């Protein structure tokens, strides 16, 4: 019996600056769970395993992910799990579950209402709680420190960063941010946190995403164009920012090597800062022939804890027959933890 796993459907909530819904995500999740199941003609009883990614700290509520389970209609009782992380890692867990042979199908979902709190300050909670966290370095400032290392080291320029922003903002009319703008115009805009300008940072986004997985030999019955997960690996670096090489993403390199990520022509990179897209391209050795973030990527809409899953879904939606694609997800300060998912379409 094959233990390959395929993506058979993907749905996402509109990425918006702020929803009126609650932090438990049900308003965003109910319609897209239905859409993802309808795409493959399945109902909830056909799903063997449910796995979510979200963050109680983002929501400001303990067990917010439990309230989200209401969106499933979890009766009769379901087989369910959760990661307090981007739902790309929930997809990893679901991939493992199918490969064990315990289940044939899984529905993975991620959601985040970033607008509820002050996102960049909430993310300071990811830092060492003894020696760094008490200073409350926000996520933008930490990214800015990383950006300047590359600027000082000649790895990228502010113009390179602006070009990433311009391309991302113009890429997708359906994204939260859609603006036709040139790098020159962007460079004329003021700094937000020198060296970063506002457009160098992903927007604050409320959103959610759903991916349905199935055993590959079953996937053909469910979808005309399933996308096979050829390999998926993730690695993490030290929690000590000073001990890390912040400009070369060794964990992404290690994950990509373990996932055998060569020969891709499409890449969806979870880079919430412009310099990080450049850094990841360099780390992964992605040449000009690789199309990067046709979805617009996180710079055009960054639903926290769903954005990494959405990279996988977007790559799976756009991959052409015979093509290899790479989807990347990140977690933690300055690209501390990275997941690489290699996709193939027959």
């Amino acid at each position: 019996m094959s233990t390959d796993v395929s993506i058979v459907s993907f749905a996402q909530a509109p990425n918006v600056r702020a929803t009126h819904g609650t932090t438990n995500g049900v308003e965003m999740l109910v319609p897209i769970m239905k859409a993802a199941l309808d795409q493959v003609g399945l109902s909830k009883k056909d799903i063997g395993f449910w796995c979510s990614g979200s963050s109680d700290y983002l929501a400001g509520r303990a067990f917010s992910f439990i309230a989200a389970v209401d969106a499933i209609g979890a009766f009769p009782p379901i087989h369910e799990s959760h990661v307090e992380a981007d739902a790309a890692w929930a997809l990893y867990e679901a991939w493992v579950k199918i490969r064990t042979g315990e289940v044939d199908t899984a529905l993975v979902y991620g959601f985040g209402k970033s607008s509820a709190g002050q996102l960049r300050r909430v993310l300071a909670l990811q830092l060492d709680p003894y020696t760094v966290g008490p200073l409350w370095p926000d996520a933008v400032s930490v990214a800015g420190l990383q950006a300047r290392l590359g600027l000082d080291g000649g790895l990228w320029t502010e113009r390179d960063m602006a070009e990433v922003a311009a391309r991302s903002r113009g890429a997708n009319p359906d994204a939260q941010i859609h603006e036709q703008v040139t790098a020159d115009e962007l460079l004329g805009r003021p700094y937000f946190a020198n060296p970063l300008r506002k457009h160098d940072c992903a927007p604050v986004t409320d959103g959610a995403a759903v991916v349905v997985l199935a055993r590959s030999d079953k996937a053909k019955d469910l979808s005309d164009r399933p996308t096979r997960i050829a390999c998926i690996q993730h690695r993490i670096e030290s929690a000590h920012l000073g001990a890390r090489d912040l400009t070369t993403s060794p964990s992404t390199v290690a994950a990509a090597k373990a996932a055998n990520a060569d020969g891709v022509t499409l890449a969806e990179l979870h880079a919430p800062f412009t310099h990080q897209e450049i850094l990841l391209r360099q780390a992964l050795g992605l040449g000009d022939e690789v199309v990067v973030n046709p979805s617009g990527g996180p710079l055009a809409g960054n639903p926290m804890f769903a954005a990494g899953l959405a990279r996988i879904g977007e790559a799976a939606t756009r991959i052409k027959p015979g093509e290899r694609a790479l989807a990347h997800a990140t977690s933690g300060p300055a690209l501390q933890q990275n997941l690489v998912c290699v996709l193939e379409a027959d």
Partner: protein
Amino acid sequence: MSAPLDIGFDYTRSLGPTLSRFVTGLAQRRILGARGADGRVHVPPPEYDPVTSEPLTELVEVAQTGTVTSWCWQPEPLAGQPLQQPFAWAFVLLDGADTPMLHAVDADDVHTGMRVRVRWAAEGGNGIRDIECFAPETGQTDVEPREADDITMITTPVRLKYMHSASPEESLYLRGLAEGKLLGQRCPACGKVYIPPRGACPTDGVPTEDEIELPDRGIVTTFCIVNVPFLGQRIKPPYVAAYILLDGADIAFLHLVLGCEAEEVRMGMRVEAAWKPRAEWGTTLENIDHFRPTGEPDAPYDSYAGHL
């Protein structure tokens, strides 16, 4: 409907052998790092080697001066950050260290390569915040170490502000309460009546719809007698916290039962709401101060067995 939700906690953290020496060192106005397996001196000292994962026990003192290796400007400081006027975050590589530490630099002209010196906070014993920030090095003499007892715990307050939004269904219910009404909604799939109404029925995953006004009377399904005092308690124990199933509802909600001895409360006991004076009402279930027994015969067990 939305309202601010401020959460906070003063975490007390025990430090363990490595960090207690680091924090004690800071209170003494000394900065300690740890030498790792590859010979690098890490500041602050990690508890475990970043490369080999072995415990790090050899601590070395580094200088109070160093070099900025990267920086990022903070034009509008956020709550809790080291300075409340604009400043630069920086990686500072202290003389004698091989890895930089993250802190703030109080200067307008921060640049990579800038030489900086620790500015110590007036009070010690607060861990990394014993360093108030870094300031431009102008050739001052080092601050002398001072006596400090061993520190094994620090307090790290966390304060977070959110805007909590009620769902459309919850908002309907809260506005109803402001008018003295108890509004539930029915799930279109299973027909159950939920109060409060919900964005997703837990058994069917669809929002509840048809609005139903429920009476302010019902029964106790299950309850507990609270005997234990706790932080934030508003009523003196013993008192009864009970699940109240309003007549016509399919789900109970938590409230208080007062107006009888705690040991008189029982499953199936019929109760009615005791409302606060109308002038005190808001968009909250607290408009009902508590539920009190009506004196009517108890509901038979079979009538509520399915709601336990």
